[in-house]
C-alpha cells in the first residue's frame, strides 16, 4: 500500500488487485426508461473485498444482482471467473454455482429446516449424497456459530441467526465469490454485530467479497477498496483510508457528511 504507483492504480475501479475474478465492462441496465446502471467498468481481484456504498436508488443492489444475473444487463460484458454471462441458461447456472448471495431479507426457505436449507443446493446442484451434504452443512453452520440450530425452522430463529444461516447456505456451495446485498439493513441493532463478525472472519479467510452496505465501520475495517455509486454511476473508488479521510469528488463528500 505504501507503493505510490500501486495506490494510484488501485484507486481505479477497472484495475483489480492481482488477476481479476469479476470484470464488468461498459455495463448498462434499464428498468423501462429509467437507466439504473450507466457504463459501469469495474474489476474485482481474487481474495479482494470490495464495499459498495451510495445513497438509496444509486444502483448498488442492481449492480451486484447483475453479477449473478438476477437482473439482466442490456449492454456491456460481465465476466465471472472466466465465464461471460450470456442469455444461455447453462452459462448463467455455471456463474451462479460459483457465486454465493446473501440478501437483505434473508430469503431462507421457511418450509425447510435450517439443515435442509443449507443442504438443498449441494444435493440438488452438486449431486452430493445426503450424508456428505449434511456433514458439509454442519461445518458451515459451525463456521457461522449456530450448529445447534440445525434442526429448527427459520421461523424459530432471530433475524441475526437467520442471516447467518443464509450465509452458511451460500457458503455450502463453496463459491469463489460472495455477494452481500445490504445484509444487515433488516436487522435490529443488537444483531448487526453477530452478522458482521461472521463476514469479517470470512474476509480474513480469503473469500472474494462484494458487499453493499451502510456499515461504514465494516468498510473501514475490512474493505480493500470502497466504491461509491450515485445515480447509476461509479463516482469514486479508493482504499478506505483514502476514501474516508480524503475524498475527491463533491458527491462523495456530500454523502459522507450526511452519514458520518
Amino acid at each position, binding site marked *: 500500500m505504501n507503493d505510490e504507483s500501486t495506490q494510484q492504480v488501485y484507486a481505479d475501479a477497472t484495475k483489480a488487485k492481482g488477476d481479476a475474478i469479476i470484470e464488468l465492462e461498459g455495463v448498462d441496465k434499464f428498468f423501462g426508461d429509467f437507466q439504473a446502471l450507466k457504463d459501469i467498468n469495474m474489476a474485482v481481484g481474487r481474495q479482494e473485498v470490495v464495499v459498495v456504498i451510495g445513497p438509496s436508488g444509486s444502483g448498488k443492489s442492481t449492480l451486484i444482482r447483475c453479477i*449473478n444475473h*438476477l437482473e439482466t444487463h442490456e449492454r456491456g460484458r460481465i465476466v465471472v471467473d472466466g465465464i461471460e454471462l450470456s442469455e444461455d*441458461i447453462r452459462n448463467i*447456472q455455471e456463474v*451462479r*454455482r460459483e*457465486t*454465493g*448471495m446473501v*440478501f437483505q*431479507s434473508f*430469503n*431462507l*426457505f*421457511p*418450509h425447510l*429446516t435450517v439443515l435442509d436449507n443449507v443442504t*438443498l*443446493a449441494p444435493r*440438488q*446442484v452438486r*449431486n452430493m*449424497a*445426503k*450424508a456428505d451434504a449434511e456433514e458439509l452443512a454442519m461445518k458451515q453452520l459451525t463456521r457461522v456459530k449456530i450448529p445447534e440450530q440445525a*434442526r*429448527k*425452522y*427459520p*421461523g*424459530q430463529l432471530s433475524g441475526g441467526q437467520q442471516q447467518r444461516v*443464509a450465509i452458511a*447456505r*451460500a457458503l455450502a*456451495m463453496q463459491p469463489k465469490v460472495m455477494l452481500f446485498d445490504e445484509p444487515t439493513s433488516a436487522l435490529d441493532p443488537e444483531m448487526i454485530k453477530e452478522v458482521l463478525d461472521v463476514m469479517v472472519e470470512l474476509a480474513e479467510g480469503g473469500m472474494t467479497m462484494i458487499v453493499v452496505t451502510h456499515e461504514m465501520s465494516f468498510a473501514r475495517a475490512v474493505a480493500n477498496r470502497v466504491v461509491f455509486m450515485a445515480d447509476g454511476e461509479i463516482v469514486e473508488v479508493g482504499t478506505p483510508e483514502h476514501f474516508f479521510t480524503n475524498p475527491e469528488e463533491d458527491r462523495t463528500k456530500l454523502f459522507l457528511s450526511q452519514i458520518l
Partner: protein
Amino acid sequence: MTATTTPPLVKRLTGIGWVRSNLFPNVWSSILTILLLPVLLYSGYRAGLFLLVNAEWEAVERNLTLFMQGTFPRDQQWRLVAQLPLFALALGAGLGTASSSAQDRAIEAGLPHERTSPIGIVRRFWSVIGFVLVLLYFASTANPWFVVLGSVLAFLLGFQIRGLPARFRLYGWSLMSLLLVAGFQVVSGTTGRAWLVTAIVVGIGAWTLTGSERIVPGWRTWALKTGAVIVTSVLVFLLYSVITDPGVGWDKWSGLHLTLWVSALAIILSFPFGLIMALARRSGLPALRLLATTYIELIRGVPLIALLFMGQYVALFFLPAGSSLSSISRAIAVFTLFTAAYVAEIVRGGLQSLPPGQTEAGQALGLTPPSVIRLIVLPQALRAVIPAMVGQFISLFKDTSLLSILAIFEFFNVRSLVHGQPDFRVVAHAETLVFVAVGYWAVAFAMSRESQRLEGRLRVGAA
C-alpha cells in the same frame, strides 16, 4: 425460555356469570337474545320431535343396502365386503406412517407434538364414525356389525406400523398404495388394463425403495432402480395373466360406494392436472399460456351440469368411432376437467402470494428453474392454498349428486329407487332426504376438519 413463567390467568365463567356475559352483555345483545332464543328453542324442539319421535325410518332401514351399494349385483356383494377391511388396513398404515414421520420431524425441530392415538383419530373423524353408527343402528342383521368390526381391527392392525423403527416406515406409503389398489381391484377385477395400474404403483414403490441414500449414488443406483422397476412390472404382468378375475366394472357401481369412488378419483386426478394448468398459465411460452388461460376461462364459464350433459352426448363427436367409454368414466372425466380449472386458479393465487425473494434465493444458489418450482415455490404455494383447495374438493364431493340427472344411481339418486317401491311411493320422502344429507355432511365435515388440521400442522415453523 428456560425461566419459569406463570401462565396467564384465564377467567372461567360458570352459570349466571356465563349467561350474563354471553347472552345479556348489553341492551342490544339482550334484545337479540330475547328475540332469537324462542325461535331457536322452538325449531330445535320441532327438529328433535321429527327426528326422534315422528319420523318413520323404515324406508331407510329396509333399503340400507341399496343406499350403500345401489344396484351393484347382489351375488357379487362379497367383493364390497372384502374391499372395506382392505381400505381400513390401508388407511391405518397411511395414518400410522404419517403420524410417526410427523412426530420424528417435530422432535428433531424441537417442537411440541401430540402423538396420534386411536382416541385422537375417533375425535378427528367423529362425524364419519357417527354416521357409521347410525348405519349400524338401522341394520337389521348382524352382518354389517361383522364388516365394521373387521374393518376396525384391520385399521388398528395397519396403524401398528407406527411402532416400527423408522427404516420400516419407508415402506408404509408403498404398502398403503398397494392395499388401495388391491381394494379397488377386488371389486373391479384383474382383467384388461388392471395390471398396468398395479405395475405403476409397484414400480413407483420399487423406484423409491431400491438404491436408497446408503448406497453411493451414481449410474449403478440408476441402473438398479430401472432394473427393479422393469423386473417388478414384468412380474405383475405375468401374475395378472394368470389371475383373470372379470370383476364388476364401475358402470355397474352405484350408491354411496359409487359416490365415494367418483369423488376420490376426480380429486386425485384433478389435482395434478390443475397444478400443470396453473404453471402453464404462468409459463414464459405465450402459446402454452394462451392454451391454459383459454381452457380455464372456458371451463369456468360453463355450468357443471351443462358440462356433464356434454360429456354424455357431445363427447361422442370428439371421441374416435367405436370407443366405448362408460357414462361413469365420462362423468369422472368431466368432474376432473371441471375441478382442475378451479384448482388451477387456486394454485395460481398461491404462486402469486409467494415473495419473489424465494425464487431469487433458489436461482442464486444455482438451482435449475424446474428445481426452484418443485422444491421452493410449490411446497410453499400449495400450503397457502390448502383451505381453498379442500373447499373445492368438498364442492366436488357434493356435486357428484348431479349424476342423478344422468340416470346414474349414486348415493342421492338411490332415493328415487326407494320411492319407486310401492311402500314408499308417497311417504318418508323427508326421512330419506335427511338421511342422505347427514351422509354427505359427515364426509364433507371430516374433510373440512382434516384440512384445518393440516393447515395448522404445516404452519408450524413456517412463520
